């Protein structure tokens, strides 16, 4: 086949994927404005957090250590995210591609290459505008790097991103071919856990203690180029081996007709979800629920029934797997990299972030996949209340599952001082999320509810980290990050205020909802 035809196909295919992913921007101008606001908001919140962190951090560590820490976080995070994608096949296949593209004379290699570009561009189009200026400002003014050094750092980051996408695709396709879910999960989890041992806990570690993690090879290699530590042998060898292995599995995968064992797996385009994929997901959940109910009999209470229903969805859509992998990675990191080196204050911050983000993600998934089926409870008396009640209970179960192993390893969280806050964490976020999703029920609005939730989700982590500190400084000045009392007071005040406002605003909507 002539090379021009091949390049033309790859170009068209990549463009098609990007259009499918970002296409909602074409539907309504509001999406474009909101996209811009998302970048701006994300930039402001993240810059605020990282800049204040960097200035505080630099007073206690050297700039080389700071750069190493940031790079280690970046490369490890990239790899862990790649493994989550690999577990689902590594290749992103939209439902329309499965029906139409797979029937055209496109070769697996052409498709795989276009997907590499798509994954690279789609992730960077959202993150680069947020992080690029930030990296430049932090690098230039706080870390005193030259423009050339920053440029090298960025080039390494982009190069690694592409190799990592290819590794995730190759591994994902080869693992999918085995059709062995146990093996797939085992391999993905093992690689995540190995990576977790190289992961610095940026926000949660006592900064005065010397770092004991080993930076990932890509971070070490970048560092050696920036700061001239050319005596390193291990990182270049490791990087070369990684690149060769990646190329080998990538080309092995490109020889396989992977549509045969990886169906449409890319259901959430940015800002919108098609009714087809929603229906597909819902059908899968229902099938799983049927199996689930054979093990645990249907409860007679409607609320308990819906709790079970939502829980089965969490298992089916992978929420629990992502949670489990995050917790396992965190524990491995704490046990092997930072044993006993964490302050209670940071444990609590971590706990807060974990709960808020996981609960918000769950709410987002519900909106994306189940919102369209709301006509079922809407047609039953008090059906919505039952569904939302069940949703809330299922989140409480999820939070308990998240917290129990965590608290078991950090027994000081059981102290009389921390316990009330921990209990509040179990109960309050589910209530807030249930109330939030109740407001976003309308189907077919141009300014989609999923998008609003996406903004909330993207802001939830930095908000969870920063807001308690801001609240603490407002209500209990002067702020002192080492004072647990101040921090906790701030955290509780913050959650309390948010909860009260949301209850006031949303309770009206709930009653309207039930009257429909």
């Amino acid at each position, binding site marked *: 086949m002539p090379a021009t035809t091949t390049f033309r196909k790859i170009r068209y295919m990549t463009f098609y994927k990007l*259009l*499918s992913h970002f*296409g909602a921007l074409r539907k309504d101008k509001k999406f474009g404005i909101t996209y811009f606001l998302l970048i701006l908001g994300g930039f402001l919140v993240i810059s605020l957090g990282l800049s204040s962190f960097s200035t505080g951090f630099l007073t206690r560590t050297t700039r080389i250590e700071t750069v190493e820490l940031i790079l280690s976080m970046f490369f490890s995070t990239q790899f862990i995210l790649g493994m989550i994608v690999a577990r689902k096949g590594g290749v992103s296949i*939209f*439902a329309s591609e499965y029906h139409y593209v797979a*029937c*055209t004379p496109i070769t697996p290699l052409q498709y795989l290459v276009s997907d590499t570009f798509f994954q690279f561009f789609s992730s960077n189009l959202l993150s680069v505008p947020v992080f690029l200026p930030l990296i430049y400002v932090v690098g230039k003014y706080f870390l005193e790097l030259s423009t050339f050094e920053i440029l090298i750092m960025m080039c390494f980051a982009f190069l690694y991103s592409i190799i990592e996408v290819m590794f995730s695709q190759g591994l994902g396709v080869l693992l999918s071919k085995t059709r062995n879910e146990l093996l797939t999960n085992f391999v993905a989890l093992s690689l995540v856990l190995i990576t977790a041992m190289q992961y610095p806990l940026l926000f949660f570690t006592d900064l005065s203690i010397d770092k004991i993690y080993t930076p990932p090879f890509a971070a070490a290699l970048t560092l050696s180029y920036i700061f001239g530590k050319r005596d390193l042998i291990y990182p270049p060898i490791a990087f070369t081996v990684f690149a060769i292995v990646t190329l080998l599995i990538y080309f092995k995968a490109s020889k396989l*007709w992977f549509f045969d064992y990886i169906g449409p797996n890319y259901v959430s385009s940015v800002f919108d979800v098609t009714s087809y994929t929603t229906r597909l997901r819902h059908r899968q959940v229902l099938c799983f629920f049927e199996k689930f109910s054979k093990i645990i009999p249907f409860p007679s209470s409607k609320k308990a029934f819906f709790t079970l229903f939502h829980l089965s969805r969490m298992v089916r859509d992978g929420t629990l797997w992502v949670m489990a992998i995050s917790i396992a990675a965190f524990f491995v990191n704490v046990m092997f990299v930072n044993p006993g080196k964490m302050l209670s204050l940071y444990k609590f911050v971590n706990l807060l972030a974990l709960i808020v983000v996981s609960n918000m993600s769950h709410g987002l998934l519900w909106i994306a996949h189940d919102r369209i089926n709301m006509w079922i409870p809407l047609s039953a008396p008090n059906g919505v209340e039952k569904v939302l009640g069940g949703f809330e209970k299922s989140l409480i179960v999820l939070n308990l599952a998240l917290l129990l192993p965590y608290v078991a390893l950090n027994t000081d969280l059981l102290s009389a001082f921390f316990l009330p806050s921990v209990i509040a964490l179990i109960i309050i976020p589910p209530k807030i999320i249930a109330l939030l999703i109740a407001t976003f029920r309308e189907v077919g609005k141009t300014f989609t509810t999923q998008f609003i939730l996406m903004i909330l989700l993207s802001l939830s982590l930095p908000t969870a980290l920063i807001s308690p500190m801001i609240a603490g400084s407002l209500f209990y000045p002067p702020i002192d990050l080492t004072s647990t009392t101040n921090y906790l007071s701030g955290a509780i005040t913050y959650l309390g205020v948010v909860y009260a406002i949301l209850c006031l605003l949303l309770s009206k909507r709930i009653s309207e909802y039930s009257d429909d």
Partner: protein
Amino acid sequence: MKTLLELRNVTKYYDSKVGVENISFNLNSGEFLTLFGPNGAGKTTTLKLIAGLIHPDSGEIIIMSKKLDGNASEVKNLIGYLPEYPSLPEYLTPEEFIEFLAALRGTKSSEYAYELFEILGINKFSSELIAKLSKGQRQLVAFAASIFHRPKILLLDEPFLGLDIFAQERVSEILLEYISQGNSIIFSTHIFDFVKRFSHRVILISNGRIRDIIYDVENLNFEKLLRKLGGWAECQQLQLSGK
């Protein structure tokens, strides 16, 4: 009559579940072949196998003397496929979608595509985003996307779903003309009237196996069909209820 397609002992499993088992049949040029059977019988799997979407675990699929295997790209332009619930790219216009498919198929967006747009009435909304189209309009776009490159074999899985009677008639005319040009169609449906109207031959399929092949479609009536499908619980229930 020239044989365009041949399936030889084709078997496909989904994990341990049977998709189709040991099915063999052929398709001649100018023939309209219908696959008829209950839900989950294996009709869609058969169409997906011929379209090259999935590969058989064993057996062979021969399209115009070429084997459909790993290098299926050679014969894929000979086939057009309309899925039962076609999923379209929501944020492309019908025009862009056809242009994109033409690029992937290595052909220019032919005059025939515009002719189809005209006949099917797609030209009225060809520059609208697919996300804004009605169910019937989307089905027309999906149909055009499966036939615009003039394939030799057209695979249709419930093509009339969601179409109003006028659109059904327009699609029917296109299909009859298409057949008259020596092309062939494999058609999967649950609607008996369509079976009678179009088919030259009917393959009865259930539980992934071919149960019977009916050649005398003209004299086929619904009761006769039910008798032939007597093994199906659903059909027996239908018979008992007198429908």
